[in-house]
């Protein structure tokens, strides 16, 4: 599948919701579209589905230009955020709906529905109406409705966001297993970057309708293309501090030993929590809060950088001896990213 300079501009708005999106999705891949609200990810998904018309550009499925093809002729299945189950039909009828529209005979229809119901543990509920199901059950019905169709593509619009946290994590892994087993191209939209990182073969980060970067999760993590991706991916977020345009790079007043100034365009320096080591080092800091998660510890600190108090996060080994108010020293060991004043990452240095 492919987005070719696809653009969608809602009438009456000044900026496009999706701006010249170029994205190529090979067969069998699970691509995640991620971004904050308003980034255009849902719109992009709906353009694939045929629920949003294109103002410019094309959408291609299997090499065919389907930009003006109606949703029902595109052989795609979609899972909506609200599940969109048909309220007057029971679970079996919901799942069999699309097959019925295609004219699949009843016997085959029932059989396929039952297969998928078994796969998703929905067999006891086949007779129930959506209003008598729990949230998790409804979500599975929505998935089942898509799976039973054996489409070319699966589209999923934040299908897990209405589930409680534990169920969400559990369903996440099941989803990925399912997709690998079925080996069908899937485009998955979420605003949760953890979901994106754990699920996608590749992840496309969108912001205000523009594609920031599309790469495998580890590439996004270790080599973000720009400041936005760097700050969006990874939790806790990357520490980002202002960097002087010339001269030695100072963090918290200390020279950390990086000479590269990007030809005078250096603007921001970033480093992830795991690059901050608490112990001895040149940077003076004070602990604000210690978050002890059991297996790892995140320490929130304050340093005096460039004349202002700035907060940074460090990742420490459990057990951590230190508490709020302590004065400590920090050193940087790991990948340090340098961004220019157009917010692009230009280089990364290992300390």
């Amino acid at each position, binding site marked *: 599948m492919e987005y070719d300079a696809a*653009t*969608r*501009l*809602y*009438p*009456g*708005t000044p*900026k*496009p919701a999706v*701006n*010249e999106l170029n994205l190529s999705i090979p067969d069998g891949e699970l691509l995640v579209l991620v971004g904050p609200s308003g980034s255009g990810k849902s719109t992009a998904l709906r353009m694939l589905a*045929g*629920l*949003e*018309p294109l*103002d*410019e550009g094309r959408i291609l499925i299997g090499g065919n230009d389907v*930009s*003006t*093809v*109606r*949703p029902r*002729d595109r052989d795609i299945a979609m899972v909506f955020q609200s599940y969109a189950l048909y309220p007057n039909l029971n679970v079996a009828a919901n799942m069999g709906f699309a097959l019925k529209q295609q004219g699949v005979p009843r016997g085959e229809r029932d059989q396929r529905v039952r297969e998928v119901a078994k796969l998703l543990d929905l067999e006891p509920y086949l007779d129930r109406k959506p209003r008598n199901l729990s949230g998790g059950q409804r979500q599975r019905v929505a998935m089942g409705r898509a799976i039973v169709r054996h489409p070319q593509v699966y589209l999923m619009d934040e299908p897990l966001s209405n589930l409680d946290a534990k169920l969400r994590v559990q369903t996440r892994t099941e989803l990925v297993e399912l997709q690998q087993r079925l080996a069908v191209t899937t485009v998955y939209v979420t605003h949760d970057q953890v979901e994106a990182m754990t699920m996608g073969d590749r992840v496309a980060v969108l912001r205000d309708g523009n594609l920031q970067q599309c790469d495998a999760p580890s590439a996004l993590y270790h080599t973000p293309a720009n400041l936005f991706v760097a700050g969006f991916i990874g939790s806790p977020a990357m520490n980002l501090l202002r960097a002087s345009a010339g001269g030695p790079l100072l963090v918290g007043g200390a020279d950390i030993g990086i000479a590269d100034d990007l030809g005078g365009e250096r603007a921001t320096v970033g480093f992830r929590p795991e690059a901050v080591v608490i112990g001895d080092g040149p940077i003076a800091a004070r602990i604000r809060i210690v978050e002890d998660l059991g297996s790892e510890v995140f320490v929130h600190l304050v340093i005096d950088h460039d004349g202002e108090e700035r907060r940074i996060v460090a990742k420490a080994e459990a057990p951590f001896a230190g508490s709020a108010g302590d004065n400590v020293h920090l050193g940087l060991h790991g990948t340090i990213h340098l961004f220019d004043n157009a917010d692009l990452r230009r280089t990364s240095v290992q300390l």
Partner: protein
Amino acid sequence: MIRRARRGSRLGVGESRATVIALGIAAWVIGMLWIFPVAWTVLTSFKTEQDASAQTLHQGLTVARYSDVSHSTEGTLSLATAFTNSLIIVLVSTTIVMLLALPAAYALAIRRVPKWRDVLFFFISTKFLPIVASIFPIYVYAQKWNLIGTRTILIVLYIAINLPLAIWMTRSFFSEVPRELIEAAEIDGTSLFNQLRSVILPIAAPGIAATALLCLIFAWNEYFYAIQLNFAGASTMPQWVIGNVSTRGNFLAKLSAASIIACLPVILAGWAAQKRMIRGLSMGALK
């Protein structure tokens, strides 16, 4: 950096412009046809009587008919009297209806009096009795209490007519208010009256407006009670219109003018409030 895109399209994917336009035209045609009788009457009201009878337009348009009907003749009902009467009766009765219906709806929807469904059914069932049947007993009592020909009797009767509908609709609009809001207000110590004012009414407002409008329409247009219980003194607009039907001479144009005048207030009110009515109805005239 961002190239300006074409103005966004309103068509869905795969929707042909032709179908959309065709349906739009169809809607217009139907609208025009449906309104035709009214439009024709409006046209007639501006004609001379001769033109009106012959359905021609030879003598041009004039507003003379409107002034004809507006002037009062000795002994017959005048426009001014009828209009005032109708206005007072309608406003007073509708206000009282709403004042009674709101608490009742509150009791039925929010406090959930036990057996509320039966109560609701009971209210609606009072409308099953044809009003023609009750006219005689009402007449007798009205006469006893000297209420014939007064506005009061009509006000009372219109309240009786509209109250069931008002309660039914208001109740369902109240039931649309999310329970949590009311509970939150309760916890905050809001008095009943303030709960009504600040929480319930703002949410149910479109529905209540729709209900009030319907009551206004039905009261203004009511004909039977008005004609049976009134003499010239307290007559209402429907009677005034009928008074323009004469048996001699051509009267079509005058009648048209009178009809338009009589219906205009309600028509304008309805036009102004239609969006609210739809919103009100879709909010839950259902439950």
